[in-house]
C-alpha cells in the first residue's frame, strides 16, 4: 500500500538535494489496463506474433502479448509495442477480440511522471557477460556451448524444457557436462574485467549438483575447470566438499579451445593439467560460467545523478559506508556497487534503506497510510449461512472442470445459503459484488473454490473485513492448482474431485469461529550486544533513527578487533574511523553504553523482551523491543608451523601490529613467507575464514612497497580475493610476490636448521619440493566466532555447527534471526571484512526499525491454544520447533494447582505439531481444531461410503 510500483519505466531527469529531489520518470505504454487485466492469459494464447523470450534468454519464444514469468509481480500482461503486429503494421487486434475484461488499450501513451522524493536508492543490477566475443569458446557457433544463465533456464521447471534437461543440438539428455570458470572475470587479456565476479564458483557447483536431479539414472559426469574455487561464504565450503564427495570432478585448468564434436553435437576441449600434460576430452555440453558486468543503465544513472564510478564502472563507495555515494541522499545497493551474491545484495539493500531512513527521519510516517476497516460484527448465535463462490479462473478451471455442475452440487450441501459462479473471483469488481452478496444474504461463512490460499487468501480476508466479518471465516478449496492443473486429461474425474473439495471446505467452514489477531505493543527501545564495530554501528544507526539503544560490551573498551587491523580492503585507515565511531557512540544522547556488562536472562518475545543485566557486578533489569546480537569473533591461535615456539612465526593480527610499530624491522627481512588456511578448511573448522587471502595479499604488497628486494612467498590452497579484491592479487603478482599452491595432503613443512627458519613445500608446477629459508613466517590463522552458547540458550536462537549465529534464511533474511525481533551482525554470524560488517550492522538496524517504528504489532491469528483437557504431560513441549510452549502451574476452580501447558502467541507459528502430538485434545491450533479437521475428513469419505 505504501509502494508505488512503476513498471516499464525509467528515470529521465533529476534535480534537487537530499531531502528534496524532483525526479522525472518516463513510463512506457503497457497497452493493457492493469486495473482490468486478470492475467487469464488469453491475449498471449491468441497473439500470432512470436518473438524470442528474453526471460529464457532466447532459448524459446513468447508472444508479443506476454507476461515475464508465471509468478510475475504485478501479475498483469503487457504488449510489447516494438513487435506487436497491430502496433507496427496496423492490423490484427486478436488479443482485443478475445480479452474477456476489455483490458487491451492500444491508445495507451508514454507518460512522464513527476515525483518528489527525499532520497534515492539505485539498484540497477548487473549484466551477464556476453562471451560471443571469445571465438575460442565458440559460443553461438557451437550449439552445445551455453552460458551458465542459459543453463539455469534449461534446469528450471518454468524454463524452455520444463526442467527436463536436454542439450540444444539434438535435444538429447547430456551425460557429461563441463563448466569453464572465470569467463569474463579475472581477465584483463580478452576483456577488461579484472575483478572476480564472486558468485560463479558457487553457482557452477550448485548447477553441477542440481544436474544430477534433472537427469535420468546415474552416471552423469560433471567436471568443473577452475583457477581457484572461491567458496568463501557461510556453509559454502561444505557445499564444495559435498560436491566432491558426490563425484563432481574439479580440474585446476583453463581449457583454451572448444571445438564442436561429431555431427556438431557435443564439444571437444583441450586443456593443460598442472603438470603440463595436454589433455583432449569430449563432453556432451559445455557451460561457460559467465561473470557479472556493470550495466549500461548503471552508467546512464551515474551520469544523470553525477555519481563517481570506479575503473570497472561499478559505483564507488567507501568501505566505511558501502551504501553511500559521493552525493548525499543518493544511495546504492546490489551488484551496481560491486559483484556480489544474493545475501550481500539483500543485506546492503537493507543498509541503503537504513541510510535513507536516517536522512529522512523527520519525515517518517508523513506520507504513509494504513488501512482501516469497519468494526467487526459478532456472529454468535446466528444460524450458519455459507456462501460458496466457484471461480472459473477464465478457462484455467472452467476449461477442465464443469463449474456449473460444481455450483449446482454446492447448493445441495448443508448450511449453504448462496452459490455463485464467477469468471474471476479475484478481480476488483467481483470483490465488490461478493461484499454486496454477503450483506444481502446475511452470509456468515464463505467458501472460495478457486486457487491457492498462499497467494489469494489475504485478498478474500480483506473483502470479508470490508463487510465487518471476521477474516478467518473464509475457507478456500484449491480446485485450480490441486485439481484443474494436474488433471487436465480427466475432466470428469476432476469435476468429481472439485465437488469433494467443495464439500470438505463447506464442512470445515461451517465450524469456523471468529479468531482475534493478537496485538503486541512494541517497546521502542533496542538492545545491542557487543561493542565492536558491528555493535557500535548498529547502535548508532538505531539511535540516529531516534530509538533509545542500550549497548552492552563485555570488556572495558569499545572497538573490538578493529583496534588490531590497520586498513580496509580498499586501503582506508581504520583507526581514525574507529576513534570517530567510538566518540559518536559514547556521546550520542540516545545510546547508553554499558561496559563490563553481560546478559544473564532473557524473557518475552518480539516487541517486548525483558532481561537482567550484570554491569560491574551490579544487576539491573531492561525492557526492550528488539535485540541485535553482535558478539564478534576472534583470530584463533595456531597449533602448528612452530607457532608459539619461534618468535619469527606470527599471525595476521600480529603482523598488523608489527606494521604499526616496527616498520623498520619488517623492512629488514630478506624473505617473508605466508601460509594460508591455517586452521580453516580442515576437519575441525570445515569453513573458509573469508578474509585471510585478501589480508595476506594486501600485506605482501605492503612488504614489497617497504622493500622491493624482499622475497615474498604466499603458500595457498585457493586464493579467494573475491570481487574487486582481485586487483590486489594481480598487483601482488606484478610486484613479484610468488604464489605456490599446496594441497591439504601435502601441507608445507616448517622446521629449523640451526638458526634458520625453513619452509618446505611441494611446487606443483616444478613438480619438485622447494625449500625456503625465511626471516618471518605469517600464518593466516582461522577466524572463529566468540562463544555465544549462553545467548543461544537464553534467546533459544540457533548457531551452526561451527558456532556462528544463524540467520533466519541464508539468502533472503540474512540479518534476521529465526526468533522474531532478534538480528545478527558481524563476525559472530560469519567471518567478513569490515565493509560487509558495517553493511550488515546497518541492515540489522533497518530491519529492527521495521518493528520499532510501530507502536503495536498485529500477529497472525493462526496460533496454538491450550484447552481444559491438558493435564500437563508435556509431550508437546519437545516437538515444538519454536519453543512457544511452556509448562506452568494452573489454578483450577476448586483451588487446587495442576500442571498445564501455556502457549506464547508471539513465538507460535501455528505449525500444528503440538496438536498432532497431543493424545488427549489438550492443544489445538485456531482455524484447524479437531472438530474442523474431523468434519473435513468425514466429508471427504462421504462419497466413498
Amino acid at each position, binding site marked *: 500500500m505504501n509502494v508505488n510500483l512503476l513498471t516499464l519505466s525509467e528515470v529521465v531527469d533529476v534535480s534537487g538535494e537530499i531531502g528534496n529531489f524532483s525526479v522525472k520518470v518516463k513510463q512506457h505504454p503497457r497497452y493493457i489496463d492493469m486495473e482490468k487485466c486478470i492475467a487469464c492469459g488469453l491475449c498471449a494464447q491468441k497473439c500470432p506474433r512470436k518473438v524470442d523470450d528474453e526471460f529464457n534468454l532466447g532459448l524459446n519464444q513468447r508472444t508479443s502479448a506476454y507476461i515475464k514469468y508465471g509468478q510475475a509481480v504485478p501479475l498483469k500482461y503487457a504488449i510489447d509495442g516494438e513487435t506487436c503486429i497491430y502496433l507496427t503494421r496496423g492490423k490484427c487486434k486478436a488479443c482485443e477480440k478475445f480479452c474477456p475484461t476489455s483490458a487491451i488499450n492500444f491508445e495507451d501513451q508514454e507518460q512522464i511522471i513527476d515525483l518528489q522524493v527525499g532520497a534515492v536508492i539505485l539498484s540497477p543490477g548487473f549484466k551477464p557477460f556476453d562471451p560471443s566475443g571469445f571465438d575460442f569458446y565458440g559460443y553461438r557457433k557451437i550449439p552445445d556451448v551455453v552460458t551458465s544463465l542459459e543453463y539455469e533456464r534449461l534446469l528450471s521447471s518454468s524454463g524452455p524444457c520444463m526442467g527436463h534437461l536436454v542439450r540444444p543440438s539434438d535435444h538429447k539428455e547430456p551425460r557429461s557436462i563441463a563448466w569453464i570458470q572465470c569467463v569474463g572475470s579475472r581477465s584483463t587479456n580478452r576483456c577488461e574485467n579484472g575483478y572476480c565476479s564472486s558468485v560463479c564458483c558457487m553457482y557452477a557447483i550448485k548447477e553441477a549438483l542440481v544436474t544430477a536431479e534433472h537427469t535420468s539414472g546415474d552416471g552423469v559426469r560433471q567436471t568443473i575447470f577452475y583457477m581457484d574455487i572461491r567458496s568463501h561464504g557461510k556453509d559454502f565450503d561444505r557445499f564444495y566438499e559435498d560436491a566432491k564427495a558426490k563425484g563432481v570432478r574439479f580440474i585446476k585448468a583453463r581449457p583454451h579451445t572448444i571445438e564442436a564434436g561429431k555431427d556438431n553435437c557435443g564439444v571437444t576441449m583441450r586443456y593443460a593439467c598442472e603438470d603440463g600434460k595436454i589433455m583432449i576430452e569430449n563432453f556432451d555440453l559445455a557451460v561457460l560460467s559467465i561473470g557479472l558486468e556493470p550495466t549500461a543503465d548503471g552508467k546512464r544513472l551515474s551520469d544523470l545523478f553525477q555519481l563517481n564510478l570506479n575503473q570497472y564502472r561499478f559505483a564507488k563507495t*567507501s568501505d566505511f559506508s558501502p551504501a553511500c555515494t559521493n552525493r548525499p541522499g543518493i544511495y546504492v545497493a546490489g551488484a551496481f556497487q560491486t559483484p556480489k551474491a544474493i545475501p550481500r545484495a539483500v543485506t546492503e539493500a537493507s543498509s541503503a534503506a537504513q541510510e535513507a531512513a536516517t536522512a529522512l527521519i523527520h519525515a517518517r510516517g508523513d506520507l504513509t497510510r494504513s488501512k482501516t476497516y469497519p468494526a467487526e460484527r459478532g456472529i454468535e448465535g446466528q444460524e450458519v449461512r455459507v456462501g460458496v463462490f466457484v471461480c472459473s479462473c477464465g478457462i484455467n478451471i472452467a476449461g477442465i472442470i464443469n463449474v456449473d455442475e460444481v455450483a449446482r452440487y454446492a447448493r445441495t450441501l448443508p448450511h449453504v445459503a448462496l452459490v455463485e459462479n464467477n469468471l474471476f473471483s479475484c478481480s476488483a469488481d467481483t470483490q465488490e459484488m461478493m461484499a454486496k452478496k454477503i450483506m444481502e444474504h446475511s452470509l456468515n461463512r464463505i467458501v472460495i473454490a478457486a486457487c491457492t490460499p498462499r497467494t489469494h487468501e489475504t485478498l478474500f480476508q480483506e473483502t470479508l473485513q470490508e463487510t465487518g466479518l471476521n477474516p478467518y471465516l473464509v475457507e478456500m478449496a484449491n480446485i485450480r492448482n490441486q485439481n484443474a492443473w494436474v488433471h487436465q486429461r480427466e475432466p470428469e474425474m476432476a469435476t468429481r474431485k472439485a465437488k469433494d473439495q467443495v464439500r470438505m471446505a463447506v464442512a470445515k467452514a461451517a465450524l469456523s469461529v471468529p479468531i482475534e489477531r493478537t496485538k503486541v505493543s512494541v517497546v521502542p527501545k533496542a538492545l545491542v550486544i557487543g561493542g565492536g564495530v558491528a555493535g557500535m554501528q548498529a547502535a548508532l544507526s538505531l539511535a540516529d533513527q531516534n530509538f533509545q539503544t542500550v549497548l552492552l560490551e563485555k570488556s572495558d573498551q569499545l572497538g573490538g578487533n578493529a583496534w588490531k587491523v590497520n586498513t580496509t580492503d580498499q586501503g582506508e585507515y581504520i583507526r581514525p574511523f574507529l576513534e570517530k565511531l567510538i566518540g559518536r557512540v559514547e556521546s550520542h544522547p540516545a545510546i547508553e553504553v554499558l561496559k563490563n556488562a553481560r546478559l544473564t536472562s532473557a524473557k518475552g518475545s518480539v516487541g517486548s523482551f525483558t532481561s537482567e543485566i550484570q554491569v560491574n557486578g551490579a544487576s539491573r533489569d531492561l525492557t526492550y523491543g528488539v535485540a541485535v546480537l553482535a558478539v564478534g569473533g576472534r583470530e584463533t591461535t595456531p597449533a602448528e608451523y612452530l607457532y608459539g615456539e619461534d618468535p619469527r612465526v606470527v599471525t595476521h593480527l600480529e603482523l598488523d601490529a608489527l606494521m604499526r610499530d616496527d616498520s623498520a624491522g619488517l623492512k629488514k627481512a630478506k624473505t617473508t613467507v605466508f601460509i594460508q588456511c591455517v586452521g580453516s578448511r580442515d576437519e575441525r573448522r570445515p569453513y573458509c575464514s573469508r578474509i585471510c587471502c585478501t589480508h595476506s595479499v594486501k600485506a605482501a604488497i605492503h612488504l614489497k612497497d617497504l622493500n622491493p628486494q624482499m622475497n615474498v612467498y604466499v603458500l595457498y590452497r585457493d586464493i579467494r580475493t573475491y570481487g574487486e579484491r582481485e*586487483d590486489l592479487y594481480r598487483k601482488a603478482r606484478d610486484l613479484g610476490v610468488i604464489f605456490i599452491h599446496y594441497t591439504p595432503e601435502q601441507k608445507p613443512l616448517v622446521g629449523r636448521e640451526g638458526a634458520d627458519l625453513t619452509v618446505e613445500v611441494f611446487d606443483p608446477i616444478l613438480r619438485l619440493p622447494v625449500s625456503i629459508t625465511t626471516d618471518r613466517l605469517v600464518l593466516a590463522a582461522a577466524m572463529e566466532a566468540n562463544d555465544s552458547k549462553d545467548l543461544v540458550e537464553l534467546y533459544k536462537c540457533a548457531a551452526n555447527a561451527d558456532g556462528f549465529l544463524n540467520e533466519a534464511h541464508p539468502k533472503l533474511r540474512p540479518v534476521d534471526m529465526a526468533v522474531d525481533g532478534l538480528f545478527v551482525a558481524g563476525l559472530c554470524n560469519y567471518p567478513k571484512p569490515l565493509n560487509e560488517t558495517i553493511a550488515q550492522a546497518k541492515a540489522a538496524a533497518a530491519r529492527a526499525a521495521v518493528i520499532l517504528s510501530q507502536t503495536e504489532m498485529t500477529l497472525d491469528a493462526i496460533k496454538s491454544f491450550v484447552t481444559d483437557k491438558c493435564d500437563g504431560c508435556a509431550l508437546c513441549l519437545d516437538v515444538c520447533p519454536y519453543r512457544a510452549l511452556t509448562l506452568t502451574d494452573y489454578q483450577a476452580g476448586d483451588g487446587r494447582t495442576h500442571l498445564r501447558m501455556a502457549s506464547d502467541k508471539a513465538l507460535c507459528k501455528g505449525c500444528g505439531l503440538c496438536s498432532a502430538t497431543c493424545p488427549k485434545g489438550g492443544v489445538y491450533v485456531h482455524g484447524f481444531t479437531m472438530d474442523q479437521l474431523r468434519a473435513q475428513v468425514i466429508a471427504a469419505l462421504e462419497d466413498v461410503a
Partner: protein
Amino acid sequence: MQVAIRVGRLAQKLGVHRNTITNWINSGKLQATATVGKKYLIDKNLFLIFCREHGISENILQELIEIGPASPTGDDAITPTFHPKPKEVPMSAKPIGSVLVVGGGIAGMQATLDLANSGYYVHLVEKTAGIGGAMAQLDKTFPTNDCAM
C-alpha cells in the same frame, strides 16, 4: 602556477572513472581549462584546495607531475586514496518522506520493503514489465538449493 594533467591519469590515481573527472571539470567543481593533447591546465593552489576539501592526499599532484604521462594500459590497480567526503548540505526545512528506488531486482525489492514497512512511501521504478530481476531467472540458489522463486 599552472600544471598540465591528463584526465585518464588523474582518474586512475583517484580510482574513479574518467567521466567522473570530466563531470567535475564541466560542473566547475574542479577548475581546469582544456589544452592540447587531451590535457587540462590546473592551477596548483586551486587543485590543492580541491584535494583538501575532498579528502584526497595532496601528494597526488606531486606524483602526477613526477610520473608524467599515463601508461596507456593502466596496469597498476586503484590507489585507494580518494575519500569522497559528503558535503554537509543543509537540509531543506523538512525533508520529503518518500524514497525513489530504481531497479526492481532482489536488492531494490528489499530496500523498498524495509522502507515501506518503517514509515516511508516508496516509488519503485522498474524497467521491464515485472519485478524480480535476475534472481527470478535462477533455478535454485546455493548453498541450500532452495527454489529461487
